[in-house]
């Protein structure tokens, strides 16, 4: 088992809990009727996003999907801007014009959040191509789900990335569902990562609920990309513990699957690892309390923030209208 030093573990734990507490807060606001927007829950996938972002540098590029809260907050988008955008406020990352499905924050490397399944992969290639062209040393990580592995853009992008040895990491968060369709009902092959071989690419499948598997796999993929050795397809097995989007029915999830998910919940597992590494319960609780305080302040800020001017509908269409 690869060793992860205590500082890095603490970093991953902090990012994981930031993702989790943001998710909990969002659902609380939606349940309480304080907010009514589309939100794609990330419960169960927090560690995958956190470990992936912890393996990147601040300057590295990320492309994610509508279920991208994990990447966005773990990469470090300032919370006030993130909540501002999710609440459609002028203070948001995109002045309230993108919304929960289109968070963009180039300062922290969140370059595109796409609402179209599978569309991020070809774009990630382009970001990586720019880095290859100008030698800036950045890598690009694109996150997507198992559902995205069946759209044409996935195949086109995988082939092109390997052909050019682009510095890109394809992170498939295999959460066992594509929208409302279970994995076995959309794909017959047992894994996604095996497809990498078809493109001559390196592919690995790891347990996304185990920090000792997911983090080293990400570090290796990032190192390969950065060294010019080409892309890697990392398939992180995880569970989407809720429906496709907040409020959607997920009674289609069989009870044995729910029991399996609960047994594999990454949060208690990560906490156990932390305790094994001599972090104390008090320390870990204090980290969460601090995150909660930051989130609460950011939510209050966003709730009180002004709405965008209606003039914004005419702006940013073309440069002339900027």
């Amino acid at each position, binding site marked *: 088992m690869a060793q992860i030093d205590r500082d890095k573990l603490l970093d991953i734990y902090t990012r994981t809990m930031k993702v989790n507490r943001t998710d909990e807060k969002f659902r609380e606001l939606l349940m309480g009727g304080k907010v009514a927007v589309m939100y794609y829950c990330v419960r169960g996938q927090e560690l995958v996003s956190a470990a992936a972002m912890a393996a990147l540098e601040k300057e590295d590029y990320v492309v994610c999907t509508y279920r991208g809260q994990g990447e966005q907050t773990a990469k470090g988008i300032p919370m006030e801007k993130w909540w501002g955008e999710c609440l459609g406020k002028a203070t948001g*990352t995109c002045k309230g014009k993108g919304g929960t499905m289109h968070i963009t924050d180039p300062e922290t490397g969140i370059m*595109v959040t796409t609402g179209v399944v599978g569309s991020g992969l070809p774009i990630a290639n382009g970001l990586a191509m*720019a880095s290859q062209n100008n030698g800036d040393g950045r890598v690009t990580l694109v996150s997507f789900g198992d559902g995205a592995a069946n759209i044409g853009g996935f195949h086109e*992008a995988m*082939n*092109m990335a390997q052909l050019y040895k682009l510095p890109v990491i394809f992170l498939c968060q295999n959460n066992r569902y594509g929208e409302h369709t279970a994995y076995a009902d959309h794909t017959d092959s047992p894994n996604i990562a095996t497809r990498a071989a078809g493109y001559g690419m390196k592919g690995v499948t790891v347990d996304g609920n185990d920090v000792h598997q997911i983090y080293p796999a990400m570090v290796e993929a990032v190192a390969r990309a950065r060294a010019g050795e080409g892309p890697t397809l990392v398939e992180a097995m995880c569970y989407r513990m809720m429906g496709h989007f907040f409020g959607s029915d997920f009674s289609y999830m069989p009870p044995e699957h729910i029991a399996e998910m609960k047994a594999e919940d990454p949060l208690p597992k990560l906490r156990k690892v932390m305790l094994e590494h001599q972090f104390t319960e008090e320390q870990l609780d204090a980290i969460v309390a601090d995150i909660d305080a930051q989130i609460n302040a950011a939510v209050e800020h966003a709730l009180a923030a002004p709405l965008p001017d209606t003039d914004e509908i005419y702006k940013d269409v*073309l440069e002339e209208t900027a």
Partner: protein
Amino acid sequence: MAQITMTQALNLAIDEAMAEDAGVFCLGEDVSAKQGGGVFKVTSGLTEKYGEHRIRATPISETAIIGAAVGAALAGQRPIAEIMLMNFVGVCMDQIVNHAAKLRFMSGGQTPCPIVIRTTTGVGVGFGGQHSDMLEAWFAHVAGIHVVTPSNAADARGLMRASIDANDPVIFIENILCYGLKSEDPGPGYRVPLGKAAIAREGTDISLITYGRTVLDALAVADDLAKEGISVEVIDLRTIAPYDEATVLASVRKTGRAITLHEAVRPFGTGAELAANIQEKCWDSLKGPVRRIGGTFSAVPFASHLEQAWIPQKSDIVAQIKASVGKH
């Protein structure tokens, strides 16, 4: 000054932009030296100068080509992506319409997407139903994209430079039948601003508004009709969207009559938008209804005589003009 063909004009514009800005690069199917510099040779000789990273021959993967262009643009580069034939945009519409066109707006202005999408098409070369369509109206209907097409070599040089300069996506349509057209070379650094139409021929009786290859037909018809005492003003839009409304409306207010002409099929074509806008804004100047001429509403046929029957004929243009001005 030397004469240059449209192919040479495009090549020169791309070459000088690549020489000036290391962020400009080309990608597309068959574009590099190994494949002969593009199916219509527009990127000929550039691999030798700039290397295979900046003239990237791609797999046959339109979604990956445009996606890569979008990503590179977000990172500050200026990709020129080639979609070999315009009908193939059907493969990559998501990347163009949902991403390239919208990322500036959806990001609140943070991520403009400066890409040029070069594509070729044209009726009259026997390419049949899936290699000939003019699909400019599809893109004109989407906010966030410029749609450009040159009708002559000089404009091709100037419009290409301006398109590479633009900080937004440009669909640059090259008509296959126009590649061999010659103009006097306007020289290095020449630019034709986007959104600026040309009055290709001045006239007083009727405004004939068109773009691309049909500008040639319009000019030929205008020459013929001048002999019959009908003075036709020919407007070459050059940028189809967003178009030069001021020039179009001023011309129609002067002549009082307008006809739109394009190779694309007539229903829901750009001519419909032009006609509607002219009628809204120039009603008091109009002496009759705005007429529209376009391709037949069917797939482009293969057999040569069918293909010729499919596209607007000069005789159609003459008949419509005469009907409009009341001379038969």
